[in-house]
């Protein structure tokens, strides 16, 4: 519900920006960034809707719409990438090797949870703004949640 209000608020702001100066203040890049944010929001909505559905035919339609919203997101993402408006942040090879090593060791030890020291060491060696395993920075829900997304646009 907060998200709805947020989106409505952006709509009003957009209208004012357009009429006040007479000129269009949103660039194509701004527009696609907001489209991407909207698609992420919708995908999250439908993911939730599927989990809440007891009615089989409604659930099937929510699943279909969820899939299409994900495809829309990808289509917007692809245009942004083609235009060079979306910078991917690749993982540091050293960090990859470290995680590989960590789980290889864990599996060699019979899949037992790691001891505290090893876990502590791993976290200490990871840079502060590192994305977690979902490609999401902890504690935020922003449009920047696409895996590896750099923030060239704005802070929400």
């Amino acid at each position, binding site marked *: 519900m907060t998200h*709805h209000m947020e989106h409505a608020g952006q709509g009003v702001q957009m209208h004012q920006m357009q009429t006040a100066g007479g000129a269009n203040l949103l660039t194509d890049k701004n527009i696609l960034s907001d489209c991407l944010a909207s698609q992420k929001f919708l995908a999250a909505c439908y993911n939730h809707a599927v989990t809440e559905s007891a009615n089989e*035919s409604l659930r099937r339609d929510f699943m279909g719409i969820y899939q299409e919203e994900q495809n829309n997101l990808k289509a917007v993402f692809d245009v942004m990438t083609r235009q060079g408006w979306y910078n991917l942040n690749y993982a540091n090879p050293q960090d990859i090797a470290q995680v590989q090593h960590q789980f290889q060791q864990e599996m060699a030890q019979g899949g037992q949870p790691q001891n505290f020291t090893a876990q502590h060491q791993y976290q200490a060696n990871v840079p502060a703004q590192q994305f977690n395993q979902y490609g999401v920075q902890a504690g935020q829900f922003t449009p920047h949640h696409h895996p590896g997304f750099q923030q060239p646009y704005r802070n929400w």
Partner: protein
Amino acid sequence: MPNLTQAELMQLREDISAEMLMIQKFAAYANMCNDQQVKQVITNVQRTHERHRDILMRHLMAAGQGMM
């Protein structure tokens, strides 16, 4: 017995209103942008939102029937 749960009704209400807002927003964006490729993808996405609204509206309207 109505064939929608409270949770489902809430989802329908939220998702239909979200789709309706997106239809308007994407239409405005399609008019505002300069690049043809950008305009095309926004227009395509907007059409899917119209279809989604219609699908969800059909569920909402069918739900009341056979209830009374």
